[in-house]
């Protein structure tokens, strides 16, 4: 049963004011197009969860979509800081809840596994554990050190971008996997965006590559270049120029407004964004071909 729909329809149906949203992706496959659509639809009071909020959450905070962030590293990776998140936390206008990377993804792992919590070894650094009451401790019933635990996270909606999926939402992902799969299994609803919609036979040719099954997917959206200015392995490179430019754009309200007006409110959807981005930029970001060696599953 096809779950194909437009991204704007999927956001309208599955993302509501006040929802806890997890737009997944560790530097890779960050679903910028979905973030922009949420901004365009004026959705409010969101709790934005992500290990690394990246520019997309800074933009969503700047656009007034969020009341709270949950994160483990709030920086512009390899460049600097996320001004709107930082200022929101500093001036008290934005609630926050903080973990280490492993704490954050362990929350998803617990959620994805149907467990109430995940244990991890102690780290000796107690200040975050003290600051965040959701960090707890549990005795090791085998006599070792107490373990630290974090509770399951069940996002209302996870947004997960992938390289290719069939129309039912069975998805192949390769390259950096981040927390894509855990977010999809942990969430109540999943919006899957894909660079390519392929025939089911392509998916079935390599079942070990299918990290997200249709079973957990609510909507499938065909969104080429969904991740720009982040990247999709094998499809396009990270647009590092933009990551550098955001440092400047984000400095004052006027330039952020100008950016949003031009690149978010000023375009209807990602197709228009892509047209506006231009062929030249697309060409610049296209990698050469480097194919995986095939494997033989055998015909039995």
């Amino acid at each position, binding site marked *: 049963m096809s779950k194909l729909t437009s991204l704007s329809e999927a956001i309208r149906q599955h993302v509501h004011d006040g929802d806890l949203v997890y737009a997944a992706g*560790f*530097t*890779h496959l960050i679903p910028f197009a979905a973030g922009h659509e949420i901004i365009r639809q004026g959705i409010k009071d969101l709790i934005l969860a992500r*290990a*690394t909020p990246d520019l997309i959450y800074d933009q969503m905070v700047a656009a007034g979509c969020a009341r709270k962030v949950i*994160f*483990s*590293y*709030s*920086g512009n*990776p*390899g460049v600097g*800081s996320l001004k709107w998140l*930082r200022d929101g*936390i*500093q001036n*008290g206008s934005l609630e926050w809840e*903080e*973990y*280490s*990377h*492993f*704490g954050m*993804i*362990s929350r*998803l*792992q617990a959620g994805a596994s149907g467990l109430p919590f995940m244990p*991890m*070894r*102690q*780290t*000796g*650094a*107690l*200040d*975050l554990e003290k*600051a965040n009451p959701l960090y707890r401790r549990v005795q090791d019933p085998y006599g*070792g*050190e107490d373990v630290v635990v974090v509770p399951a996270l069940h996002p209302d909606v996870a947004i997960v971008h992938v390289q290719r999926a069939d129309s039912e939402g069975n998805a192949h992902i*390769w*390259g*950096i*996997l*981040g*927390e*894509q*799969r*855990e977010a999809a299994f942990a969430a109540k609803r999943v919006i899957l965006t894909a660079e390519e919609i392929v025939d089911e036979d392509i998916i079935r040719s390599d079942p070990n590559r299918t990290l997200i099954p249709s079973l957990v997917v609510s909507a499938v959206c065909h969104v080429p270049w969904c991740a720009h200015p982040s*990247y999709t*392995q094998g499809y396009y*490179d*990270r647009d*590092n120029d933009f*990551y550098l430019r955001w440092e400047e754009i984000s400095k004052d309200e006027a330039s952020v407004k100008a950016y949003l007006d031009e690149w978010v409110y000023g375009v209807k959807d990602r197709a228009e964004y892509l047209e506006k981005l231009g062929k030249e930029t697309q060409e610049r970001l296209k*990698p050469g071909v*480097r194919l995986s060696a095939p494997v033989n599953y055998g015909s039995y």
Partner: protein
Amino acid sequence: MPEAEYNATELMIINAARLLKDGDQVFVGVGIPNLACNLARRTHAPKLQMIYEAGVIGARPNRLPLSIGDPTLVSGALSVCSMFEVFSLYLQRGNIDVGFLGGAQIDQYGNINATVIGDYFHPKVRLPGSGGSMEIAAWANRCYIITPHQIRRFPARVDFHTSAGFLEGGDARAKTGVRGAGPQAVVTNLGILKPDANGELVLAALHPGCTYEQVQANTGWPLKQAEQLEYTAAPGAEELRILREELDPQRIYI
């Protein structure tokens, strides 16, 4: 010693590279640690392997990676796994020899603050936060810190323990039961600090032309000297050549 020209970043990278051993499995970020590892691989540690918190094992990048998740780290790598897996199967399991750490503040006992200046709930300056450093500092067999030597970066006590060094010193770290040995060296542009038996960072080595007084002036606690104070060799011509011509020809980091 020939008067080779080098800058502070090159000096730190080269000294960090020298601390790495052949065969080390290194949990590494982009920028300076990445350059130090690649330099070590091309000199004395060809079997050193780089593992990125993004889940990339044995990367063989064709270009200088610009982010921790740069696609050039993936193409041609030995293995790629999820973030949960790299933190559990590799780091927590004890498969990582070396972790690199950084932060806004490093204190007398090697504790690091990358979270907040001022009160956590009413921050004066909010920093990015732990990322993976809470776990790296605890579970890598040994850790290294690379940072410019400035007094604001070296307070006697950090405002917030983002990751554990030797805590309050003595057996405080050992008592927590964390598996890693903690920070083994802090490489700066002036010299190298190392923990003494009490876990206190002391001056272990001076770079060419640097003095104890200079280091003390940039350190927020009365800095002891190691019994055997050492003097690092100046960056060698070959080390500089590899760094400048092969590793960062566009001088993005150096």
